């Protein structure tokens, strides 16, 4: 088998040494280790197709992985097999400023994309301070939430090329027609693209994606508002979003803000002491024309809303010096070096789901209750609320720092995450991206949806070779 793999991608792109296999057997989650028997690194679509054809003949599971940074367990080979590491496919195939889109391969990192877009006065619609080395394609395909809720859409993915689990090549949306420019996702036939999103690599291997980009603002102003409790953030955000205010808009708890801002670990303690429990960040950004005038009318409206809620949006919270420029810099230039989420402990175990902002505080209470019961310091629980689609829904995320080397901590946090997730789901939290243990919790509640997904999977992947053991497959 190894010979066949070497024939497809070249000997140096097939790895099966213990060290490499160990690296791909774990990730940032507490999911059990799963070992592949090889890691292969194709360089183009043709090689990916050959790998998939090979996997169908040998009935070998294939697990696509786009970068070396994994926070969800999606790339752990649940049933062994071969990891298809796509990091060599890292070209930005096109930047189209006129139609505001970029065509990227799976190995393109957030940092690479952001830097390239800068030259065209564009920016990517990235999630909350992504790991600079994480794959931008995977992030969009796996529906990580965008930081900017001002657009009606929460899905920057447009059109894509996919190697189907049968080895056939398929192109979605208007890109299926070589005359077109790939700007429209629907068709050919039906909205196939939707069936590849959130699929955790079970429906095929995406080899390029057209994603929306937006103008990089020339002028911008960040405002910060401090809150004692999450509940109080919701109504002002509803109002701001209804009036189309601002670009980035999100809420971070004290612990998350402190992690983000503590570029120097020495600052962490002081930040924890100075920051409010919750900080709402709203960036007013100028459009390409008359940018300052846009910021001015938006600021006036912001102050009106703030007065109604007795808020004082300012350039900082907790007296933190230079917060506005620090935040804008972090938003526009993805940082090098250690990832902010692992500054406090070697991992951050996360729970995230979709809900509406008026329900967020109830879920937060639950999370804090569980954290206390499991003996955690509730000040060290991260909370992130991301309004979506003009505030009509939100992504809510809790994070629990966890030392991966500490067996008892792993066990404690692992059990907390599972039990709290169950409770949240019982209470209506919608886990749209069911990774790891969430899959069973979610799919057992939705028999018809699950049955239909299984039917589809049989059509797409008759031999069950693409990332088996994930979702309900």
């Amino acid at each position: 088998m190894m010979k066949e793999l070497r024939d497809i991608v070249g000997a140096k792109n097939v790895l099966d040494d213990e060290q490499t296999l160990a690296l791909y057997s774990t990730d940032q989650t507490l999911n059990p280790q799963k070992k592949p028997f090889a890691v292969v690194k194709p360089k183009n679509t043709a090689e990916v197709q050959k790998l998939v054809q090979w996997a169908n003949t040998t009935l070998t599971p294939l697990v696509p992985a786009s970068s070396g940074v994994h926070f969800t367990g999606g790339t752990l080979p649940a049933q062994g097999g071969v990891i298809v590491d796509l990091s060599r496919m890292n070209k930005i195939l096109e930047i189209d400023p006129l139609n505001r889109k970029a065509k990227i391969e799976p190995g393109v990192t957030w940092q690479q994309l952001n830097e390239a877009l800068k030259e065209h006065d564009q920016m990517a619609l990235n999630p909350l301070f992504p790991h600079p080395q994480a794959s931008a394609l995977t992030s969009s395909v796996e529906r990580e939430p965008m930081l900017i809720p001002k657009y009606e859409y929460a899905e920057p993915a447009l059109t894509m090329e996919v190697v189907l689990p049968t080895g056939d090549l398929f192109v979605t949306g208007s890109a299926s027609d070589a005359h077109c420019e790939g700007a429209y996702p629907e068709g050919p036939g039906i909205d196939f693209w939707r069936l590849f999103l959130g699929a955790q690599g079970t429906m095929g291997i995406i080899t390029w994606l057209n994603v929306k980009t937006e103008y990089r603002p020339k002028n911008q102003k960040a405002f910060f508002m401090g809150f004692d409790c999450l509940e109080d953030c919701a109504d002002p955000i509803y109002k701001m979003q209804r009036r189309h205010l601002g670009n980035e808009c999100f809420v971070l708890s004290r612990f998350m803000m402190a992690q983000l801002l503590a570029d120097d670990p020495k600052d962490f303690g002081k930040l924890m002491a100075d920051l409010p429990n919750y900080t709402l960040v709203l960036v007013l950004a100028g459009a390409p024309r008359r940018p300052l005038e846009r910021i001015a009318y938006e600021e006036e409206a912001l102050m009106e809303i703030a007065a109604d809620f007795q808020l004082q949006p300012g350039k900082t919270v907790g007296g933190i010096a230079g917060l506005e420029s620090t935040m804008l810099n972090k938003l526009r230039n993805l940082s090098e070096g250690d990832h902010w989420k692992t500054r406090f402990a070697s991992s951050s175990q996360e729970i995230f789901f979709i809900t509406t902002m008026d329900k967020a505080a109830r879920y937060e209470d639950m999370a804090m209750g569980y954290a206390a019961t499991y003996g955690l310091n509730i000040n060290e629980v991260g909370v992130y609320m991301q309004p979506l689609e003009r505030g009509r829904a939100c992504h809510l995320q809790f994070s629990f720092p966890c030392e991966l080397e500490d067996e008892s901590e792993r066990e404690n946090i692992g059990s907390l995450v599972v039990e709290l997730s169950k409770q949240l789901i019982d209470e209506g939290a919608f886990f749209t991206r069911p990774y790891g243990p969430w899959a069973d919790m979610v799919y057992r509640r939705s028999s018809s949806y699950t049955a239909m997904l299984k039917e589809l999977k049989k059509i797409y992947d008759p031999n069950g070779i693409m990332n088996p053991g994930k979702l309900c497959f």
Partner: protein
Amino acid sequence: MTEKAKNDERHQQILNAFQAAIGVENVKDNPATVNAYFGDFLPPKMLGMTMPPEFVVLPNGTMETQAVIKICNRYKIPFIPVGSNQWSLTGSPNRPHTVIIDCKRMGAIHEIDEKNMYAVIEPLCTLAQVQAEAYKRGLYIGSPEASATASAIGGHVFQGMWGVGYRLGVAYRNILGLEWVLPNGEILRTGSFSQDADNGFWGEGPGPDLRGMLRGYAGAMGGVGMVTKMAVKLHPYPGPKVWPVEGVIPNQTSVLPEDRFKWHMVKYESLEDAVNFMYEVGKAEIAGVVQKWPTVYYIMWWSKSCEEYWTEWQKRTFQDNAKNAVGVCLWGFTSGKQLEYETRVLEDIIKETGGKPVKKEVYDMWVPHNANDWIRDTHGSRMMRASGTFLALRLQTDTLKYSIGQVKTGYKWVDKFSPPILDSDGPDWIGGYDFGHFGFGETDFPVEKNTEAIGDLMGKLMGMVKEDVTNGLENGVGPFLGGAYHQMAAPVFKYDKLLKGIKRAIDPNRVSNPPHQIDPDA
């Protein structure tokens, strides 16, 4: 037993089954009723529509719809779900024993969540009805040029391209949770409905998004069962709580408050210049609607009768003054100051791009009477004004730039097939969407309404579609024809195995409006 007697017995058996399931009064097989569901806005016998349905049934709710569809499966008879039946091209029977599932008893708005901006509706709710409720709450939903009297679910499962889609979203993204009876009679709940049948606020997942099976660039033409409940997004709206109307039909005007809404009509020398202007407007992230209407649209929507249409056509008011004009409606979502800001930006763009305002008299004809039809269309039927019907040769969605070439190809076809295509002045409709991220182009025109001429033209249209497909052109008018098109296009664009596989899985008895969306056995 004679063939007729056998048929009669079977008819009675099916009738009994429907009546038992949904009540005697909700099952119709009398000629007066069934004949009303036969034919479309083109003369009959287009696309093989040669017979009335055998039954028209009116279930109430998901469970009754499920019962009806299960009965169709038991007897292996085709059914067609219809909304307001405006796209009757695919909503009329094309084979014997068809059952029309009419949604007349499913008109409830179950919920409007004002804070979280969505409504949960049944298939009979029209877009006008949802809009009226939304306005009261400072919210909005779009309406296609077919008019706001279209079923909101029908419009969303079909195409749902509308003016305000430029800023407030197009139909495929408006669709949130669905309750959907599949062709085999199973109930599928998608999005957050999959976890909680009472909460449809979120559309996708869990995991891969099964909304993907519901529609494509054009709808599934009733080939994937019937949606009985849908949660749809609503959008922020800075307008009045009641749609403003002055006057009496057909001479109404609608003027929205000037501190929050302002139409500009800007004329260019060429289509290319007009589209360049549309790009600049999108790039500046201003406006709520950006439309380049063809001159036939101006005349269609303006005229109150066929006579007035042709008189107006000969006067050439719109051809001479609004050719290559773009209508831009600025919306003050944030405040009146937003409108003032956007006005300044727009003026800069007009100056830079060499645009000229259309003449005041023309502006005053169009804007108060008809421009707001692109926010709430109350005059869609006027598209039939000129000749009693209309056709389109090119419809495609990609970049704005791509639309130019497409509509220009459309002109050539229009010339080639004229008559029966009537005068239409290069019918190029181009709309900007998602702040100009993509554009939609369409060539619509009036056509002589007689069976022979249209039959001949439809034959040519199919020939043209075939030629397009052979040349790898996917995004033309084809998808609007449903099964006949997908049969040709699916192998070329490599979705035949997947689409046929899906159809086979959900429709084992091939009962959901065959041959739509594709015939898996062909």
